[in-house]
């Protein structure tokens, strides 16, 4: 029994269509201000006042056993104080079952604790973990959809400005 990881690259995330309650973060290519050749990376900018979502789909690895946790690395566009709340939803379909994937709904949302943003300097990377208590009975080999969002409308999400998501991973206990 060990810890397995599914890496969920920002560039592989599917943004929703932008309709009501299907809002999407802006995907941005970031160029470091360091001297050339500069590092580049992708980030997803989540609004401070509404909930925007980014969604990944993948096959759950064969060694998945239990305890899925979403690990998020982020930085803030400007905030150096306050808290953020991140949400994650999962939908899992076992091959051969009767579920219509085209009509699949999310399991109940999982919320992070209010997490303080890195202090002093906007741009420092912080981490949020979301324990996926509601994981839609996911099992090894399932087709999985997983969303990450910032609950910007929550009164407990107090940090001003965009949250810039730079890395997402799903960890789990292996068989």
């Amino acid at each position, binding site marked *: 029994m060990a810890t397995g990881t599914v890496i969920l690259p920002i560039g592989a995330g599917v943004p929703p269509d932008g309709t009501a309650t299907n809002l999407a973060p802006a995907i941005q290519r970031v160029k470091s201000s360091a001297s050339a050749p500069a590092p580049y990376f992708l980030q997803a900018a989540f609004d401070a*006042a509404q909930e925007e979502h980014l969604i990944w789909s993948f096959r759950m690895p064969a060694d998945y056993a239990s305890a899925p946790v979403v690990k998020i690395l982020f930085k803030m*566009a400007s*905030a150096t104080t306050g808290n953020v709340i991140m949400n994650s939803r999962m939908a899992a379909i076992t091959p051969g079952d009767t579920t219509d994937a085209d009509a699949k709904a999310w399991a109940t949302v999982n919320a992070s604790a209010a997490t303080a943003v890195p202090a002093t*300097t*906007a741009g420092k990377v912080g981490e949020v973990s979301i324990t996926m208590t509601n994981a839609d009975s996911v099992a090894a080999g399932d087709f999985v959809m997983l969303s990450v969002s910032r609950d910007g409308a929550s009164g407990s*999400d107090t940090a001003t400005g*965009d949250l810039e998501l730079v890395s997402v991973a799903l960890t789990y206990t292996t068989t």
Partner: protein
Amino acid sequence: MALSTGERDQVWRAFMRIGTGEATNFVKQTVRDAVDNADDWADSAAASVPATSYNAALNATFRSNATAAQKSLLLALVCIVRAGRPLPEGS
């Protein structure tokens, strides 16, 4: 005439979207309160020379932590919406 609550929310969201590039050592509610302060001040300034300066009209947390550029941006956004011009955020 003072902005409506929806218009003030619009300014608040726009400030948080545009006002990047400088560290903000204050939380969302402080910005929202500062929008109220700025619009109230603009309202008073529209009628007569206000008794307090714009800076003094801002709540203490915003006043002491926001940069001059951030304070200017806030007033500019308030004035844009007071002028009846739309912001991308919508009301």
